[in-house]
């Protein structure tokens, strides 16, 4: 009998269940640092968003009177914490933004500093970089463009405004993170003119095309391109010996001030990664501007030490607008632009060849004039994965 019981018992012992999950959650306490001069009574109500970068979900809370906020059960992972707050002072609206990377692998007690953003007369309205496929399945990115809009109620002049591209594609830690008051760029192209030649009506925009042609119809184009850029205002034309870039005479060229990795044509990263800014660089003409640029060179030596590359740093105060485009959420940790220029980041999640772009949200339309949202936080200000619609304002 004992033997029988032993056999039966050994059969039952064979089966043992898995234990229930031993999962963790942590408290995240954040203090929003509004600065010493900020009125105490206005610290309540700032929205703090905790964004899980791997799973792409967010949780929100608002600050109390002390500027504190608490998230009680946060799953472990990598988060970005952003603060956005608008403030009316002396009949003007100011936007306060802050962003910080938070690693939650235990209880977190941290502070986010916010910066007051400046409102710019010009904003980047649309940036199309992803490109598309050709009928034969090849990639096509010659139809990339940047659209800059006048976000004021007065005529603004765009000549003298430069387009800048940050030195890094944001795939690793920012090499220039210790430079706080400037951004380091590898490309500067400027709208030609003396400051009174390129008027932009209130709410309207100009197109800076990589190639100013109707990409759908032109023999050099791609019938699957989503855009016709034959009516672009300016194009990026690289005048080099082999003439590999086509110069479309109907569209005036931008002035090339800096192109560190000079190639056959200007090309933005089709997967995202080009952090873009527009700036008014000091100088009344091309010569003075280039003199300024040449005085602001910074160098970077390759890992092997065999070569040194020179870039240019442009002070934050000259930057009118900036948008930090990342390749995907996972790379958003490699922040390049300082918070006062862009407290967030944006992307085309559809990826390269998707024919999609990022577009600034419309804040309101006043008497037919479109006013775009400009909180200096591209995460909030831009629509992602939208169809390119150059010069369509709605």
């Amino acid at each position, binding site marked *: 009998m004992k033997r029988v019981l032993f*056999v*039966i018992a*050994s*059969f*039952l012992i*064979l*089966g*043992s*269940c*898995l*234990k*229930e*999950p*031993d*999962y*963790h*959650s942590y408290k995240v306490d954040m203090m929003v640092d509004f600065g010493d001069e900020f009125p105490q009574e206005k610290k309540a109500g700032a929205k703090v968003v905790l964004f899980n*970068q*791997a*799973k*792409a979900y967010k949780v929100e809370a608002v600050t109390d009177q002390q500027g504190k906020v608490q998230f009680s*059960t946060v*799953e*472990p*992972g*990598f988060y970005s914490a952003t603060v956005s707050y608008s403030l009316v002072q002396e009949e003007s609206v100011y936007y306060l933004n802050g962003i910080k990377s938070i*690693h939650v*692998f235990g209880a977190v007690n941290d502070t986010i500093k916010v910066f007051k953003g400046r409102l710019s007369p010009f904003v980047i309205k649309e940036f199309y970089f992803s490109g*598309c*496929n050709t*009928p034969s*399945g090849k*990639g096509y990115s010659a139809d990339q463009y940047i659209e800059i809009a006048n976000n004021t109620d007065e005529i603004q002049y765009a000549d003298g405004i430069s387009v800048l591209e940050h030195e890094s594609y944001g*795939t*690793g830690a920012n090499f220039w993170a210790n430079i706080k008051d400037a951004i380091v760029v590898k490309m500067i192209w400027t709208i030609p003119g003396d400051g009174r030649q390129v008027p932009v009506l209130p709410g309207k925009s100009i197109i800076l095309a990589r190639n100013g042609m109707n990409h759908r119809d032109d023999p050099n184009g791609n019938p*699957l391109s*989503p855009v016709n850029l034959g009516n672009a205002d300016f194009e990026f034309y690289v005048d080099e010996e082999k003439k590999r870039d086509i110069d479309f005479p109907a569209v005036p060229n931008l002035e090339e001030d800096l192109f560190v990795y000079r190639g056959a044509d200007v090309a933005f990263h089709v*997967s995202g990664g080009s952090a873009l800014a527009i700036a008014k660089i000091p100088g009344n003409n091309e010569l003075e501007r280039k003199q300024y640029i040449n005085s602001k060179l910074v160098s970077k030596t390759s*890992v092997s030490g065999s070569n040194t590359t020179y870039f240019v740093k442009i002070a934050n105060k000259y930057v009118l607008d900036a948008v930090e485009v990342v*390749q*995907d959420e*996972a*790379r958003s*940790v490699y922040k390049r632009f300082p918070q006062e220029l862009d407290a967030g980041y944006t992307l085309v*999640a*559809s*990826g*390269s*060849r*998707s*024919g*999609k772009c990022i577009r600034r949200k419309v804040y309101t339309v006043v008497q037919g004039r479109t006013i775009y949202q400009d909180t200096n936080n591209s995460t909030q200000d831009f629509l992602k*994965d939208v169809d390119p619609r150059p010069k369509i304002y709605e």
Partner: protein
Amino acid sequence: MSIPGPKYMSKISLSILLFQICLIAGAADPDIVKPTNLLTFKQIEAGSPWLQSGNAAGLAQMQQLFPAEIKLGFNLNDDDFHSVFKGKSNQSFDFSSQSFRKINKTYLFGSFNYSKSVEKELNFSNNNDPAMNYPYLFIDTIGNDSYDREFFKLAAIISSPVNSKLNWGLSFDYKVGTASQNRDPRPENKVLQTTVSPGLLFKANRFKLGANLTYGYYNEDIDVSVVEENAQHTMFQLHGPGVFTYHASSSFYRLYQQQQFGGGLQTEYKSGNISNLLHSDYKYSVQTIDDGRRGGIALWAATRNDARLDGMDWIVKDVFSIDKGAKVHQLKAMLHVVNKLGTEFIQRLEKVGATDLEHWITYGEEQKYYSLRTNAELNYQLLVKDEDNLMKSLFNAGLKYSAFSEKYYLPNNDQHYSNLLFAASYLKLFIFPRSSVSTEMKFSYQLNLDNKQNLAGTIFLVEKMYGPEFNFLTEGFLSPGISLAYQVPLQKTFDKYFIKTDFDWFHSMDGRNRTMFSFSTGLIF
């Protein structure tokens, strides 16, 4: 592991087919009289509990029947009472063969199956077999898909005595195939599944004691593409009830790999016409899930392995038999527990090493998903045989209790249900001078005992998928069914020709139906 594409698979299948035909032709030895009838394979299944024990050495304990069969089949099931992960209709054609043989003291079994099927009006699945991958399913929400499948299965068992007290055995099965959809986003699934299990059986007087080990490997490679130019689709990676992440893309790649280890113990006591077989089978599995995108438009530089599913599958079964020669009474009691634990890895894409290549770096892991399925079953069976020891009728009645609960932590989602199923069937063979006919009447009724679903939010996938799936799983139904088969003897080489048809109809309490029909024709010899 790489899986051969369809072109190579057809060569493999042709080789297997030729091998099978050779085996079957060899089996048709005119000098050996092999008593068979329409119900022979059913008799082996019902009357040989050792065959269901999982121990290949138990093949030698089967009744002295060595039939072979080849058949062609057509199966259709249709209508709206189905899982949301399945299509409205599924129709398949198959060719199969199986054969039991005894050469000297060695027992052999071999089977081969080829099937081609089309599943239509499928809405939420890019997995070939959603039950296999649950909860880590991969779906899109573009509905009205159609899944084309082509699969080959091969199984073999060998058992032989080592001495008068000890038998050894080895079983092997191998399944390989492809499944593909014809509408964007269109997955192509390549599936490989194989199991190998050696076993020993010790005999001493009235006792038999067996033990076996099992190793299984499963691999499903899903390559999703979008043919339409400049179009992206949203792909959802499910993590648990109501929890998912998603990506808009024109391509996606997922790889499931599962290793399974386990073993079983069996003991039989036999005294006179009474016997009792108790067996327990335990398997532990580890499934990994790798995600990524293809090179040309890759946003993720490296494939990401962000989840793991640990599983436990335990069956304990007792079969009590009274063999009175012409009548065999059998009482079966079974407990089946399946337990799963899902772990997610917390990762970040980083540049590492001198090459500056990006890799997903794991910073931690969190156990997030848990499920427990318990099935308890009690079944009575009466098998009646004729003077040639061939089955002429079979009565079955059983009660099955099943309970399932699953939880996801943060956000805390859980669901639970339990069902009770009663099933009965009666199979009878009618012998005529030149032919025989078998009929089977079937009836089953399921009752939901309790259910609770607690999923956070009213997101699209909860509304369209998890909610309806829960309704399906907890819905009561009744199902009558009938099988008819007709057999005529043949004069040369082959023994008997048969045609068989099955019809089952499911009617749920909320008014939905499902019809299952199958037709097969073939030879028994």
